[in-house]
């Protein structure tokens, strides 16, 4: 007997359910098993559950082609667009898949989250073109390269995966978030926009702005459209500094880091903390004091006077060669 390709695939799912109708809301895990085509996506499997097993399961989906951004959710703990996630890629040996709603956003029901916080973040960056003039007829003149550059951010479909897995938003709901900052970049880099400096200044000065990103890379990892929000945030920071926005802890942190490694070949953490806060910023320095005392008690306080690295001359040479090249 010749071997035949299997016509179906058995998929096991464990789904986090939430029913707001119960007093205070009820959360529970529910397991399902379905048989689908071997090429199926996670979304195909969820639709099979919804249509054939359990009509009470709520999820959003529309295009099935990774362009509408509806079906972001967590698969095995990580945010994904499930329409472009093939089952064989996440459960190659038929493992049970764990499906949860996206993080950092309020759950409405089951896998459906509220879009309110996502779009209020987007709204904070004045997400529309603000040109200095409108041509009376015809179009703005702009290079093709400048437009293709913006494609990086225009590829964003606002699915919310980056916001879901952002480690800053987990602890600071005021952070403007990776999606909104990538959206802001789309305007600061648009040659037709006239508000570049104001936008950069606002995002630089604002509490929860561009300097609150901790560069954890999560948003780059989970973005299903290659927007790489963190890279856009880093470009915003560079642009902000170039535009003269240097009175921020973010800038001082960067500068202190740079100087300390250049001088000593290693990071002077004590100085970094004080530099970042600013030497005259008494309230912030007082904030730091308990952290310093706690670190001292545990024997974790960095030395007050920095040690020089043995290779600090080599580090200096490295700096020199990079700076000469620039």
């Amino acid at each position, binding site marked *: 007997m010749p071997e035949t390709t299997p016509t179906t695939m058995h998929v096991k799912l464990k789904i986090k359910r939430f*029913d707001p*109708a119960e007093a205070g809301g009820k959360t529970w895990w529910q397991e399902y098993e379905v048989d689908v085509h071997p090429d199926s996506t996670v979304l195909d499997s969820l639709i099979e559950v919804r249509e054939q097993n359990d009509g009470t399961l709520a999820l959003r989906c529309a*295009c099935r082609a990774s362009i509408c*951004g509806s079906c972001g959710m967590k698969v095995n703990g990580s945010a994904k667009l499930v329409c472009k996630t093939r089952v064989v890629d996440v459960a190659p040996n038929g493992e049970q898949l764990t499906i949860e709603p996206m993080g950092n956003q309020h759950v*409405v*029901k089951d896998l459906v989250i509220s879009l309110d916080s996502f779009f209020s973040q987007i709204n904070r960056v004045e997400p529309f073109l603000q040109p200095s003039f409108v041509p009376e007829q*015809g*179009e703005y003149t702009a290079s*093709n390269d400048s437009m293709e550059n913006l*494609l990086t951010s225009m590829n964003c479909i606002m699915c919310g995966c980056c916001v879901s897995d952002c480690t800053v938003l987990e602890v600071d709901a005021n952070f403007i978030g990776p999606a909104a900052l990538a959206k802001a970049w789309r305007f600061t880099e648009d040659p037709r926009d006239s508000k570049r400096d104001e936008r950069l200044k606002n995002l630089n000065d604002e509490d929860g702005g561009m300097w609150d990103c901790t560069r954890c890379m999560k948003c780059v990892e989970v973005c299903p459209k290659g927007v790489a929000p963190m890279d856009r945030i880093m470009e915003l920071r560079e642009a902000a500094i170039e535009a003269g926005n240097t009175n921020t802890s973010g800038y001082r942190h960067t500068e202190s880091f740079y100087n300390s490694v250049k001088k000593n070949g290693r990071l002077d953490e004590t100085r970094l903390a004080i530099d970042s806060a600013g030497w005259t910023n008494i309230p912030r320095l007082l904030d730091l004091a308990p952290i310093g005392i706690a670190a001292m008690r545990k024997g974790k306080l960095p030395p007050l006077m920095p040690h020089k690295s043995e290779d600090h001359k080599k580090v200096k040479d490295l700096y020199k060669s990079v700076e000469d090249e620039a």
Partner: protein
Amino acid sequence: MYEHDVLIIGGGLAGLRAAVEVTRAGADVAVISKVHPVRSHSNAAQGGINAPLTDRGDDWEGHAYDTIKGSDFLADQDAVEVMSSEAGEAVLELERMGVIFSRGEDGKLGTRAFGGQKVARTFFVGAITGSAILHVLFEQSLKLGLNVYEEWFVTKLIIEDGVCRGVVAIDLKTGEMHTIKAKAVIMAAGGAGRVFEPSTNALICTGDGLSLAYQAGVPLMDMEMIQYHPTTLARTGILMSEAARGEGGYLLNAAGERFMEKTAPDYMELASRDVVSRAEQTEIDEGRGIDGNVLLDLRHLGREYIEAKLGYLQEVSVEFLGIDMAEQPVPVQPGMHYIMGGIKTDVNGATNVPGLYAAGECANVSVHGANRLGANSLLDTVVFGRRSGAHAVEYIKSVGAHSKAEEDLANEKARIQALLDRPKGERVATIRNDMARGMTKGIGVFRDQASMEGALENLKNVKSRMGGFSIENKGKVFNTDLMFGLELEFMIDCAEAVVAGALTRKESRGAHFRTDITERDDENWLKHTLMYKDEEAENGVRVETSDVTITQWEPVKRVY
């Protein structure tokens, strides 16, 4: 109490463009949509938007004629003249709003070639043109502070004394039903692709707007005109933009031959969509396909070019089939894609019901006739979205106070409660799949009397089961189970009108290709079919016909 001067159903390109126009005119406007606006199906348009820019040597009559020839002379020529002559300004305005259209060397907008046209006049953003325009119109809606009822599902239009006065809708997040009163309603709720299976359309394209208007007494016109797109990805049915061929891609059969040479030696792969789909289906039916597909070959374009101009196609091909288009051709087949038919409107979007307008895919102005040219649908949405908005603003000046009536809300609440209270019965998805597969089988790329009668029989069977389905989810919050039941009722209306139109038209024209009557018959059928909902008529549909408007182009034989 919800009241607005103008209420727009649908937050895609037509709806948002209409909303911008109404806001500019200073009237109070809101958009209501069952999905957030950026989830709308306008996203899925990939290849571009057509516009003859007269300041760079193109002429609008050329675009108009290509559109009319593409329509197999079923489009109303006065409507096409409006669309073509307003196209340039419509596209330039999108650019000025912020759309990042591709440019030429001179920094001005650049174009690519598209099907059914010898002039390259398609403006584009990579292969995400629809998405890039939708997101910019959404940006404009944020700028204008547009009021949006997000994730509200309209169940009924309120018609009083033959005039449209608002809607009844469910707020999906709470499950509560409300009346929203309006002096004018613009239907911009998108197409009905899910009436067929498979389809390139999003799962939300369930013909809600067509059905709501049809139930309110508006005729659906030329519903038999169903576009099968020539390049949908094997098995998944995902759309692979015509831009692939516009940028120079080939279609090959199993023997590696560019088979379009046989049917369209001049236009080759860039003939009209109906022509290319039929050529492909013929290759497949006559045994020159590969597992029910032909091949789309981009290898000669080179990796860099593919990734720069057709990045989304490469992404889809790799993600869904594991095929790198720079290395291998990708298997494609014709797939249901667009419905040329729709709510009959005039060039201002007005229907025969005062206060009710329609624009975008749910409407039929008619500019697409029997076959729509690629990249004309985006154009249709912005031109007629704008016009509907502008005309609705004029109309409401003569409308007095809002309606006082509340009985529609009570009736709708009772109807929906009865649906929820039904005893356990058949699943909605089972009935829907039976309907949609029957439609594809009977009303396909090729059709004949027997296949269309088969679709009718299937539909009768499906309709007879509509009283017996049940809604499993009895909850209030985000009850999509209930919404799918209501959508199925909308889809049945659309299916009924499609089958009635198809059985009425005794000729082959554009997408309506009958293997038992293969010729176009201008003498008897240079006509629109108009389907009215009428319980007393045969199969619940009364079919009338009306003449096609011819202004300056007499129908000739269509050769590509």
